[in-house]
């Protein structure tokens, strides 16, 4: 049934390893940059707010595949030398996904009411204590389901690095398929692997959402 997969399993799993590496880099960078972008989106300083908003709205209107190409063409000009596809892909994912994570962070920051902050101050907490013990944990709990969902989307999106020749999971599968011509089992295998990971992730996200709702936090 899956004999062509079995014959090339190490090559395919190597590709999946690249996909995982790409996902982790994109998530770490994307979430960190997204947290800053979210701050920029609630900034009262118009020199910060408008450029950040333009950046977010522009990229959210773009297909990711085109953004990957654009960075692939622009990076050698900035760096002055050709970059390897992995680095180029990581940079485009971080900059692209940060706009989506940024909107999640913005919603999280805005979900904290002024009263909550005042209440924390009135108990004698300092600003940094309020932030550390009250604001950040509450905002984080509220954002967690959306953060997980967007992480799954990012994981799926990394397959698009295919187009700049990066040998990730899908690219390697199509290389094997060109030799073996066993499309049903090969692409079926990729689909099943992605499904297992993403389905588990979406269940985890739903669990935290239910939990948050029960606690009356969302």
């Amino acid at each position, binding site marked *: 049934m899956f004999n062509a997969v079995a014959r090339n399993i190490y090559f395919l799993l190597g590709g999946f390893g690249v996909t995982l590496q790409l996902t982790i880099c994109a998530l770490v960078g994307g979430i960190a940059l997204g947290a800053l972008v979210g701050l920029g989106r609630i900034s009262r300083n118009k020199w910060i707010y408008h450029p950040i908003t333009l950046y977010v709205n*522009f990229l959210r*209107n*773009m*297909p*990711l*595949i*085109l953004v990957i*190409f*654009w960075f*692939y*063409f*622009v990076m*050698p*000009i900035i760096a*002055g*030398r050709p970059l390897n596809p992995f680095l180029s892909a990581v940079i485009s994912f971080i900059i692209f996904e940060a706009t989506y994570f940024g909107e999640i962070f913005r919603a999280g920051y805005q979900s904290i009411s002024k009263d909550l902050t005042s209440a924390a101050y009135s108990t004698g907490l300092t600003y940094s204590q309020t932030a550390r013990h009250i604001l950040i944990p509450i905002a984080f709990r509220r954002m967690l389901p959306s953060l997980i969902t967007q992480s*799954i989307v990012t994981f*799926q*999106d990394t*397959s*698009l690095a*295919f*187009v700049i020749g990066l040998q990730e999971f*899908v690219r390697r*599968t*199509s290389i094997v*398929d060109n030799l073996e011509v066993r*499309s*049903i089992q*090969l*692409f*079926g295998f*990729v*689909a099943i692997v*992605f*499904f297992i990971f*993403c*389905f588990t992730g*979406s269940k985890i996200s739903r669990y935290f959402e239910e939990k948050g709702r029960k606690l009356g936090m969302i």
Partner: protein
Amino acid sequence: MGFAYDFDWGVLWRQPYGMWLLEGLWLTIKIGFLAWIIALSFGIFIGTLRVTPWRWLRFIATAYTEVFRNIPFLVQLFFWYYAGPMVFGQHLGRQINQIMGLNYYVAIFALGLYTASRVAEHMRAGFASISRDQYQAVLSTGMTQYQMYRYVIIPYALRIITPPLTTEFLTIFKNSSIAMTIGVAEITFMSYRIDAETFHGLEATTGAMFIYLILGLTVVRIMGIIEAKFKIPGMIGRE
């Protein structure tokens, strides 16, 4: 610095390259619209199955949405394009592979089925926001289950979910760019093709970005008019 790059923005209007981008735009619009017809009709159908009283129908509809949402669209597209014809056996599969413009039809079909799962999710949320009393009120007027969904609940839910459907409609044009991977000559494909011929990929992709921006803004405009027309007064507090 060995990489002094000579910008040549003229590539965007010099022929044939300028025309290529416009041809690509036309194909993007066609794929988006045709896939949207599939996505909307099939999505409404699947979304409705998810709230029917029959357990098996609910299970099938839920399985459909989970499967299509949890597999990257690129993988789905490859599956339909490369593995799809093989499902029909070797002989028929070979004949299917000879159809002219097969990649174009597969792209519409795959994008339609994928977006249908997302439309179905929105439908479910729309149904959930209609109160139980409403259903009972409709049944008490003597309508059958089918009539209830057909004449009251579905139109009602659709009007509630017009805003998320607008987002979905925008997304379908963005996702259609992935069809380039199976050789459909839409905008992104064309900008890449310009790079292959002129080495001015940066200018070509930047031009393509602005075309997507204009396309997106146009869609938002049109959908804004439709949303204003279909919104239920006092129901959705939109700014």
